[in-house]
């Protein structure tokens, strides 16, 4: 077997070994030298390691097991002293290794500006794990400061990561805008603003004079007299190919080791790959061409034909939240034209550079979704004359027809993030689909995409549709869950028409596939039953989420929060004293909420009945801050106090709250009553909002201020408080009887249409009947759940059933 020696375990040589072994594991007996005491890891992922978002083990590409399994002899932590190309021997610190073929993968080293003080401890590059560890260590000191010299790709990633670690960071950049090789001044400006918003100080046109300190770097001084105290200095001004060993061995070098398109040096049987090579006068720093080189060299070593071809490159910055993309050539020049799109309010900037009806460069900031599509046009040299007018709006505007969301998804690159909650990108989803996942449920189970907040569900469905083509039928109606094939709407309808009045009846009659549902469908069915049959069906606590069963909000540490009701936001000194005493007695953290009440956090489950008892004694009841039910009615002070107030908004708010409290609804219900159109109670982003005016009351519904933000829509204008209470109760009952469980009012209204809601409620008889049904339900459910559970016979259920910690161990 021929002997192959590889010097340097970097990303390029790592890829080379992979390709070589995959193609023919028996071709070579391989020895791998590395001066760093470890093997291949993904150097471009050092930024997330520095910021703490990833650990070192997560970025290892080849571990000891991999080398062992592939019979690669590793000599890590051992420097190569020289290479004798005449005898074909590599001389390591621990002895000679003869070779038949030799590969230089020595990579590059950080360029350190020879400033006074550059050799002080505490001055590091951002090149390897040692640098990263040094920076992490410095960041651990409270109030630590970092100076990053260099505002290019690497420097900014280091700066952002150090900032994430909590350091005060200053970036010094010699040019007049950041990343001047990849960005034009406009995009550079937006990037600077974004970084400053994150608390990173950026100094442009900085002339760094010296680094001073007593035994270690303590301060950076600039030419203009600026002094920057610091705990660490990171120099990220560029890289230099590491070619000393090659030069000393007599291998032909220019700025780096000269290779041809087969990655051969000018010395027989010696090859080079990665950042240490010079090809056709070019050096390489980004990873894509290095991987191309590795692929070519693997073939060359196996005696197959392949040639390295220079490709257009695109750049993305790996700084979360700074969205930039650049590709091609975007310098101004004769015969070049620009198309520029700016939306300063959103911080979006796009610039396309066109020459001879071809796109030759693109810079984008803030919205880079179409970046890869533009990059494709640049690489392919596509004639863009026909789409020039709409080119800047991206692929979804091409092809004549109206914008098709599917085409936008189709052109997304594999690394495009689809699910922000779980960090799932398009490629992961496509892989899952290719692995057999054919619907939303399967995608959620395998990748977790859209399984958290669900806002990306539409996107995931589009990826399914694009990937599967005609095989994917976009479901028109999702079944309630895996337990049953019916939709929520069908289940609601059948519960009414078939008069199903118990859970068992629902399971039997509607063909449930599980014994008694699951955590997803059972709470829904429980609600549908109690909303439709208030006198026949009794709410089942065991079908309620923990908060609604324990009448308090569970927190991440397993303790609970307790929030007494404050009618319309009014309270009294006596109530506040009782709250203060309870907080002290049960060790609560006290928080004033956005819903005009006081939250007592950190209460142990065992203490809940006792604290409820204490609050009950002061006349307070549950605030239902934990239910799919009426939460708060937010009010302003109204005409009793306010010089602009037109009606008694506080009084009306209290009346509404007294009418609606303790009712169960499909999702939470929040109200607001403002005394005038200045709207201090922010009523127009609630589920139901009342704006008082001179002539009466404007009742509006279906607002939102959560995952979505939406203004309410006017339902009706009324003249008396009684009318407001009647219409509000009728609306809530209509919502209770018709909405899908866990649809907020605005989602339900969007489905049924505001016109239908208006029409239904406009009929006095219908309205009256709805209010009557609401009142019947309230006759069952409107009582304080805390008082019921504070009595000793119920309170005991909040304790452990047994305590065996004192049992003698046998």
């Amino acid at each position, binding site marked *: 077997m021929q002997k192959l020696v590889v010097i340097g375990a970097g990303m390029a040589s790592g890829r080379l070994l992979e390709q070589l072994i995959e193609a023919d594991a028996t071709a070579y007996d391989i020895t791998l030298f590395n001066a760093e005491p470890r093997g291949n890891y993904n150097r471009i992922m050092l930024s997330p390691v520095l910021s703490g978002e990833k650990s070192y083990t997560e970025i290892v590409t080849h571990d000891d097991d991999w080398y062992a399994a592939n019979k690669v002899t590793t000599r890590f932590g051992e420097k190569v002293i020289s290479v004798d190309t005449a005898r074909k021997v590599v001389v390591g610190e621990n002895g000679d290794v003869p070779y038949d073929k030799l590969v230089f993968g020595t990579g590059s080293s950080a360029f350190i500006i020879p400033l006074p003080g550059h050799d002080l401890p505490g001055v590091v590059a951002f090149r390897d794990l040692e640098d990263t560890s040094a920076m992490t260590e410095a960041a651990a000191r409270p109030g630590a400061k970092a100076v990053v010299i260099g505002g290019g790709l690497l420097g900014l990633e280091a700066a952002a990561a150090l900032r994430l670690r909590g350091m005060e960071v200053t970036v010094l950049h010699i040019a007049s805008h950041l990343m001047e090789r990849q960005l034009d001044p406009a995009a550079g400006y937006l990037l600077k603003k974004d970084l400053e918003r994150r608390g990173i100080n950026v100094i442009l046109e900085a002339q760094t004079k010296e680094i001073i300190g007593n035994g270690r770097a303590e301060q950076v001084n600039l030419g203009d007299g600026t002094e920057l105290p610091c705990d660490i200095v990171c120099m990220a001004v560029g890289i230099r190919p590491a070619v000393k060993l090659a030069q000393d061995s007599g291998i032909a070098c220019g700025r780096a080791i000269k290779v041809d398109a087969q990655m051969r040096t000018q010395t027989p049987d010696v090859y080079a790959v990665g950042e240490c090579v010079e090809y056709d006068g070019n050096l390489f720093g980004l990873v894509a061409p290095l991987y191309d080189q590795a692929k070519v060299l693997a073939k060359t070593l196996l005696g197959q034909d392949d040639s390295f071809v220079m490709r257009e490159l695109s750049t993305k910055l790996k700084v979360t939240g700074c969205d930039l993309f650049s590709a091609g050539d975007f310098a101004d020049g004769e015969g070049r034209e620009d198309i520029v799109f700016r939306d300063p309010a959103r911080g979006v900037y796009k610039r396309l550079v066109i020459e001879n009806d071809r796109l030759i460069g693109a810079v984008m900031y803030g919205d880079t979704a179409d970046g890869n599509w533009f990059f494709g046009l640049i690489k392919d040299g596509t004639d863009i004359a026909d789409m020039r007018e709409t080119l800047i709006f991206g692929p979804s505007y091409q092809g004549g027809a109206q914008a098709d969301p599917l085409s936008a998804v189709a052109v997304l690159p594999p690394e495009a993030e689809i699910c922000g909650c779980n960090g799932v990108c398009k490629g992961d989803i496509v892989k899952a689909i290719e692995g057999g996942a054919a619907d939303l449920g399967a995608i959620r189970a395998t990748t*977790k995409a859209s399984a958290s907040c669900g806002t990306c569900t539409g996107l995931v469905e589009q990826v399914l549709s694009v990937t599967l083509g005609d095989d994917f039928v976009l479901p028109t109606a999702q079944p309630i869950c895996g337990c049953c094939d019916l939709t929520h709407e069908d289940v609601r309808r059948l519960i009414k028409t078939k008069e199903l009045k118990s859970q068992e009846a629902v399971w039997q009659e509607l063909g449930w596939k599980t014994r008694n*549902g699951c955590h997803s469908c059972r709470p829904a069915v429980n609600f549908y039953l109690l909303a439709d049959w208030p006198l026949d069906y009794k709410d089942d606590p065991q079908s309620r989420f923990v908060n609604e069963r324990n009448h308090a909000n569970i927190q991440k540490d397993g303790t609970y929060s307790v929030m007494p009701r404050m009618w319309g936001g009014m309270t009294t000194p006596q109530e506040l004293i009782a709250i203060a005493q309870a907080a002290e007695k049960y060790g609560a953290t006290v928080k004033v909420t956005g819903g005009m009440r006081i939250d007592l956090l950190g209460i142990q489950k065992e203490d809940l009945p006792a604290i409820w008892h204490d609050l009950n004694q002061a006349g307070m009841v549950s605030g239902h801050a934990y239910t799919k039910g009426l939460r708060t009615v937010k009010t302003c002070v109204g005409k009793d106090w306010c010089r602009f107030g037109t009606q008694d908004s506080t009084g009306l708010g209290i009346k509404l709250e007294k009418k609606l409290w303790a009712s169960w609804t499909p999702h939470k219900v929040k109200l607001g009553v403002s005394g005038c159109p200045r709207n201090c109670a922010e009523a127009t982003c609630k589920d139901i909002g009342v704006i008082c005016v001179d002539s009466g009351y404007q009742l509006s519904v279906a607002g939102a201020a959560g995952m979505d933000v939406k203004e309410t829509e006017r339902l009706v204008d009324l003249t008396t408080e009684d009318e407001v209470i009647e219409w509000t109760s009728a609306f809530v009952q209509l919502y209770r009887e018709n909405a899908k469980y866990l649809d907020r009012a605005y989602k339900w209204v969007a489905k049924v249409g505001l016109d239908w809601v208006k029409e239904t409620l406009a009929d006095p008889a219908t309205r009256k009947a709805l209010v009557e049904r609401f009142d019947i339900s309230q006759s069952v459910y409107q009582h304080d759940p805390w008082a019921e559970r504070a009595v000793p016979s119920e309170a005991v*259920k909040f304790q*452990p*059933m*047994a305590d*065996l910690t004192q*049992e003698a161990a046998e």
Partner: protein
Amino acid sequence: MNWIDIGHIDDVPLRGARQVKTKVGCLAVFRTAEDEVFAVTNACPHKGGPLSEGIVHGTSVTCPLHNTIFELSTGKSHGVDAYTIDTYPVRIDGDRILLNGDAIAQRSAA
């Protein structure tokens, strides 16, 4: 066998659970719709959610914090992230629930 009486069957709600404090930490004792009983570690291995507060369906429980589903008879979770919780021998004798003290003693010695 050292079976410890931990309470009446009706102390645990149908399709519900109660906590039992032991030397090996808090256990959750479940009672299904069919009156089967199970005892498992109370804390979900994911983020420590109290499983005794989860919704019980069939012979499974859903963690109240992040919806991981555990099969009570085996202690194994469904879905992508495979978690396993300890299960403890428990049985019904008449209307009393008995927990195996030996299993707990062994676990605490281990």
